[in-house]
Each structure stands twice: as C-alpha cells, then as structure tokens.
C-alpha cells in the first residue's frame, strides 16, 4: 500500500495519448538527438566554439564592430521615428474614443466606419508579416544595407504601435474627450486637449519599450542583409570565424542590457 499512487494509471494514459499525438511531429521534424552527438558534428561545433575564446580584439575589427554597433542603434532609432509617422495617423483613425458616430447620428457614418475597417486591415498586414520578411523583401528593392532595415522596422512597428496607441487611447480616461466632441469640437482638437494629457505618459512609455524591441530586431534583420551588427555576425558565421562571432555576441549582449536599462529608467521616470 505504501507505494500506491491513485493518480498513476490516469497519468500514464495521458502520457501515452500525448506521445501518440506527438509521434508524427517527431517524424516531420526529423528529430534525432543522436545527430547532435555524432563525433564529426561535435567536432565542427567544438572547433567553432573553441575559437570563441579569446574574442577578436584586433584594432581594425574593433573599429568595424564599433561602426556596426552605432549603425544598429541608428537603424532602431530611425526605424521607430518613421514608424511613428505611420502609427500616429492610423492609431487616431481607428481609435473608438475619437469616433463622433459613437456619440450619436452623424453624417458620413458609413464612410468613416469603412475607413476604420480598412485602416485596421492595413495595420494587421503590416504587423502580421514578421519584420525579417519585410527586410528580405525590401533588400531586393533598396539593395543590401541599412535602408531596408530602417523601412522594415518602420513598417512592422508602425502597425504594432498604431494598434496599441488606439488601445491606450480607448482605455485611458475618455470623459473630457467625449465632452469636447459632444460640444462640437473637432476630432484633432479633442485629441490634443481631451485625450493626450491623460495618455501621453503611457504612450511614450510604450514607444520606448518598442524602441528596445526594434534594437533587438535590427540585429536579427542583419542576417538577411539589412545592415548593422547582424550583417557582421552573418558574415563572420559564414566564414566560421569563432573569435569574431564571440566579440560580436558580447557587444550584442551588452547593447541589449544597455537598452534594457535605459528603457527601464526612462519609463520609471515617466510613470
């Protein structure tokens, strides 16, 4: 009696059931942990990782690395700035709290409703396609380099920010805005005097958080040739130059930490 667990049979059945469901998935993904421990494979990885120490510190390389780091920072900043240009109008269009037709019967109700709907669909497409796919597509138009990266961030984060802006505007205190609209003021004025004062801190805080995300994304986008640290890392990886990759990784980790800290500090001051 001492070792009897009443729940054991049921648990065992669940395990078998889960395994039957997952078996095809294991086959599809060619799941084979042994591959990882094959001596030739381990040797390739071992050689590569062995070069990680010491990291590359040659003067020319550090200069290139410094340039790429600045480039990454600039891509994220410029990308978010352009994203704002997309996000602010779209966010204002779809925000329900600036809707006059919600207050009462208004002219052109159908027109505005359909405009909102179209704006929503545009934003869904912008943010639904991953930023690296946008980068891959834009690299083919603007060539390898930073332009594709900046525009990819602008497009994806424009869609994301727009949606979140409208949600923030709807969830913050909308009374004064509604009163302004009911008294017959224009939507832009109602936004500036009724909504913005209450929501500005949250809006700014979210924008800075997205800047931090854009920084991380801009490193990843380098892998398809959109400039910055990622492109440098991709080149070094293709040449199997472990010491360079390790320097780049260290800089990347420091950069992420810095962005984390900066965004935390600024947001703490704001809220």
């Amino acid at each position, binding site marked *: 009696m001492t070792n009897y667990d009443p729940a054991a049979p049921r648990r065992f059945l669940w395990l078998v059931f889960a395994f039957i469901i997952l078996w095809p998935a294991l086959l599809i*993904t*060619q*799941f084979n942990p042994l591959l990882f421990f094959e001596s030739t494979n381990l040797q390739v990885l071992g050689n590569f990782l062995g070069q990680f120490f010491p990291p590359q510190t040659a003067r020319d390389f550090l200069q290139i690395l410094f340039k790429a780091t600045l*480039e990454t920072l600039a891509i994220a900043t410029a990308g978010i*700035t352009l994203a704002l240009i997309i996000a602010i109008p779209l966010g204002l269009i779809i925000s329900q709290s600036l809707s006059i037709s919600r207050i009462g019967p208004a002219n052109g109700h159908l027109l505005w409703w359909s405009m909102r709907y179209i704006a929503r669909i545009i934003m869904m497409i912008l943010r639904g396609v991953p930023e690296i796919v946008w980068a*891959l597509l834009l690299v083919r138009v603007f060539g390898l380099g930073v332009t594709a990266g900046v525009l990819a961030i602008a497009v994806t984060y424009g869609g994301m920010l727009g949606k979140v802006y409208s949600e923030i505007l709807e969830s913050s205190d909308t009374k004064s805005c509604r009163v302004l609209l009911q008294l017959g003021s224009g939507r832009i004025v109602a936004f500036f005097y009724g909504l913005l004062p209450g929501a500005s801190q949250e809006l700014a805080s979210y924008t800075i958080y997205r800047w931090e995300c854009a920084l991380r994304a801009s490193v990843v986008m380098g892998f398809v040739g959109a400039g910055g640290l990622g492109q440098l890392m991709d080149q070094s990886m293709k040449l199997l130059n472990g010491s360079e990759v390790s320097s780049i990784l260290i800089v990347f980790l420091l950069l992420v930490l810095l962005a984390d800290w900066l965004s935390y500090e600024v947001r703490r001051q704001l809220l």
Partner: protein
Amino acid sequence: MNTYPAEQFCIKCFTTILVIITCIVGSFVYLQMPLFEIFSAESLANLSTYVGRFFPADISSIFLKKIGIGIIETLAISAIGTLVASFFAILLALPAAGLFGSLAQQLVGFLLNFLRSVPELVWATLMVLTVGLGPFAGVLALALHTAGVLGRLFAQSIENSPTQIARSLELSGASSMNIFLYGLLPQISSQILSYSLYRWEMNIRMATILGFVGAGGLGQILFYELSLLHEAQACSVIIAMLLLVIGVDAISAKLRRVQSFSLA
C-alpha cells in the same frame, strides 16, 4: 480661451526632448539614408512594378500542397521545440530556484541568461552548422532559446510556490524525487502549462522565419522561392504566414478569454 495657468518651464523635460531630437537627427545623418530618393517618383514607380510581380499569387494545387506541408512542418518544429525546452527548463529551474545551494543557483542563472540572450536566429545558424540543414536544427534552436526563457519563469514560480507540502513530505521521510513529484510539481504544473503554451504561441511565429538560415518550415520555402525570383510563389507563402499568425493570435485570444471566464 485657455484660462489654465501656464506650466512652469521644465528644464528636465526640455533637455530630454532636445536629447531625443538630437538622437533621431543623428541617426538619420549617420545612416545617410536617401529619404528623398526613396520617395521620389522614379523609385516609387520601381517599387510598384516590383510589388506588381507578386500578384496574382500562385494558387496552383501543387504549390498549395507544398505550403500545407510547410505549415505542418512549422507547427511541428514549434511544438517539439517548446516541449523539449520545457522539459529542460524544469530541470534547470530546480537549481535556478536555489534548491541545490547558492553556487549552483548562480551558475545555472548565468546559463539561463546566456541561453535566452542569444536570439533564436543565431542559435539556428549555429545548429545548422552542427546538425545540418533541416527542421531538426530549427527544433534545437527554439529549444535552446526557449529553455532559457522558461527556466527563469519556472524558477520564479518555484520560488513563489508555498513550501509547506514539500516540507511536510521531507519531514515524513519521502525521497527527494517523491518530494518533487508530489510536493512541488502539482503546485506549479498549471503555471508551467500556461507559460509553455504562451511560449509555443511565440515560437510558432518564430518558426516561420527560422527557415531563412536553413532550419526548415515556411521560411525555407519563402527564402528559396525569393532566391529564384519566383515572386508569385513567394506571395502565396507570405499570405500563408500571415494567416498562420493571425489564426494563432485569434485562437489564443479566444482560449485566454475562456480561461479567464472559468477562473472568474
């Protein structure tokens, strides 16, 4: 007429705004982005012919079948990757929660930090080098990154879970395995499940793009078709990605609503 008293001049706000503007202008100057050329008539005309090549999307049944296989592969990569990750995350969370002394806690904490700081795509490149092209590399890449994320979250839930049951089992002489299985695991299992499902959702999105470095799934098809300048096919793949992401979003939002209802 505005009758509010004017706000006092705030030097801190002013400098902050000035610094931000300087950073933005500096970025554009540093990148030397030809903003005006991008939006010139010629460039826009180029862009529209390029976009035009994507339409109409290829919806021949052969290609749709290929996309279907790609979607299944993407889902499988993300599911197995998340599963492997949560298994190792539980193992790593025990020392990370300080159950095996503070030295182990520090070491494992550092390992988890490292695992999750390296982006999935970098792990994928490394894994493609190790185990070759294919979906298995994607599974490993997702597993490594996600193990870092989940390990930290699981460690937090272990730290926050009440210890009375584990303690009483320990005092009555249960083995440490039994303490874990019957004292700890039931307390955190629902959190483990919800965190894992949440990461699975994110990993589905990630698995669609891991193929860019050769780690299988929809991304690999997209990269391949774009390299061959097959824009119509690429368009179908992008639409499939979009539908996959939107579908996953909708399902998870629905499930979350159901869950919050049943909790309330």
